[in-house]
């Protein structure tokens, strides 16, 4: 148990880094940590460095694993399954998809074209931005393992339910015609060597880093602001635990925002520290990452309005339910 605790506090939460930054600010810059500005600066430096370290390591490791699960393989695995099992496996494999959202539309087209039911494809599409290995580790780093695992569980259940509802409501007819019109041959497989996988992972790190660093700075900046400057009463008044509308407000507010989990987690963390419900904070995070105007605009090109609206409704409702559940039962896990 001791080793486990040590890994949690030193490797995941990086307490050593917090101490190091504190030492630097107190002893080298000679600033007083009790001052608000100094505390904000400490939080900012520590959080930014921590997230950048985790991001680099995680993206590298995960990209390497992912290189074994290209969508072509996922498609083949899912093609041999049906019913609830297919949706479950689709949701699981969604956690292993590459980071770039620009691939989600070609994946959608490839899956649907090969005859996979739309329900299964949507299970995959919902889980892929919502739950990935990086988010799990980050959640464990910022909160704890129970919360991280519950989050994954909730995300996977939501993906399965979403796929199931779309299946039951017979939404296949709302896919744009051209997606299924011509059967497309399977593409030739590109065989990867270990060197290819390593260079792919390295490129991924570079690409993700360049894409998200601004969001991380903004996210942590907002987090630091909330952390030390915005009065607790004000936040509690708006989205405190006891209001029935908190989760609703946080979710709806997060929908149009196009953000990465790396940028939204520091905000969620600051919310929780201010006494906002865990569920409310997670709802904001989930809706900001799972739904965004750009991704909906992309999706609109391959599915018709009714399916797009249903998809948005299912995901929004799901996130709200998850938020309320976490709010009401979080006393069990914190």
């Amino acid at each position, binding site marked *: 148990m001791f080793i486990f605790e040590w890994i949690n506090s030193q490797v995941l939460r990086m307490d050593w880094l917090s101490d190091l930054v504190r030492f630097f600010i107190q002893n080298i810059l000679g600033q007083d940590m009790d001052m608000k500005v100094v505390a904000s600066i400490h939080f900012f430096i520590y959080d930014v460095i921590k997230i950048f370290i985790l991001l680099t390591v995680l993206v590298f490791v995960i990209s390497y694993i992912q290189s074994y699960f290209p969508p072509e393989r996922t498609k083949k695995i899912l093609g041999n399954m049906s019913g609830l099992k297919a949706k479950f496996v689709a949701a699981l494999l969604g956690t292993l998809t590459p980071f770039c959202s*620009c691939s989600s539309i070609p*994946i959608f087209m*490839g899956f649907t074209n090969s005859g996979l039911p739309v329900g299964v494809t949507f299970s995959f599409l919902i889980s892929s931005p919502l739950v990935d290995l990086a988010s799990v580790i980050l959640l464990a780093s910022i909160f704890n393992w129970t919360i991280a695992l519950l989050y994954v569980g909730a995300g996977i259940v939501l993906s399965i339910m979403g796929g199931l509802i779309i299946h039951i409501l017979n939404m296949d007819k709302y896919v744009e015609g051209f997606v299924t019109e011509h059967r497309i041959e399977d593409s030739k497989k590109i065989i990867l060597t270990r060197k290819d996988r390593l260079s792919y992972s390295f490129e991924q790190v570079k690409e993700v880093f360049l894409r998200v660093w601004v969001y991380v700075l903004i996210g942590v900046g907002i987090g630091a602001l909330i952390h030390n400057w915005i009065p607790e009463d004000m936040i509690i008044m708006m989205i405190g635990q006891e209001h029935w509308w908190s989760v609703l407000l946080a979710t709806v507010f997060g929908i149009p925002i196009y953000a990465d989990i790396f940028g939204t987690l520091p905000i969620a963390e600051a919310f929780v520290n201010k006494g906002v419900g865990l569920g409310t904070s997670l709802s904001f995070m989930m809706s900001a990452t799972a739904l965004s105007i750009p991704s909906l605009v992309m999706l609109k090109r391959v599915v018709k309005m009714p399916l797009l609206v249903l998809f948005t409704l299912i995901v929004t409702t799901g996130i709200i339910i998850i938020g309320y559940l976490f709010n009401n039962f979080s006393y069990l896990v914190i």
Partner: protein
Amino acid sequence: MEIKTLGVSCSKCKKLSERTERVAKELGLTYCLEKVTDLEEIMSYSVMTTPTLIVDGVIKASGNVPSEYELKEILKEA
């Protein structure tokens, strides 16, 4: 040499087109580069990840942006 890049207006796709063009010029190749953004046309190449690089009808990279070094190798070979 006929080079095509497939992808729907995402940052990675733009990067692939730019980088490919730069490397092709550097190698002094005669080439034509086409940026395919139409979803139906992308589908017809049966790729499931973008950006994709196609040289003379052969898929050379999919789902990632090769480094300049790798691109040089790809274009030299073709």
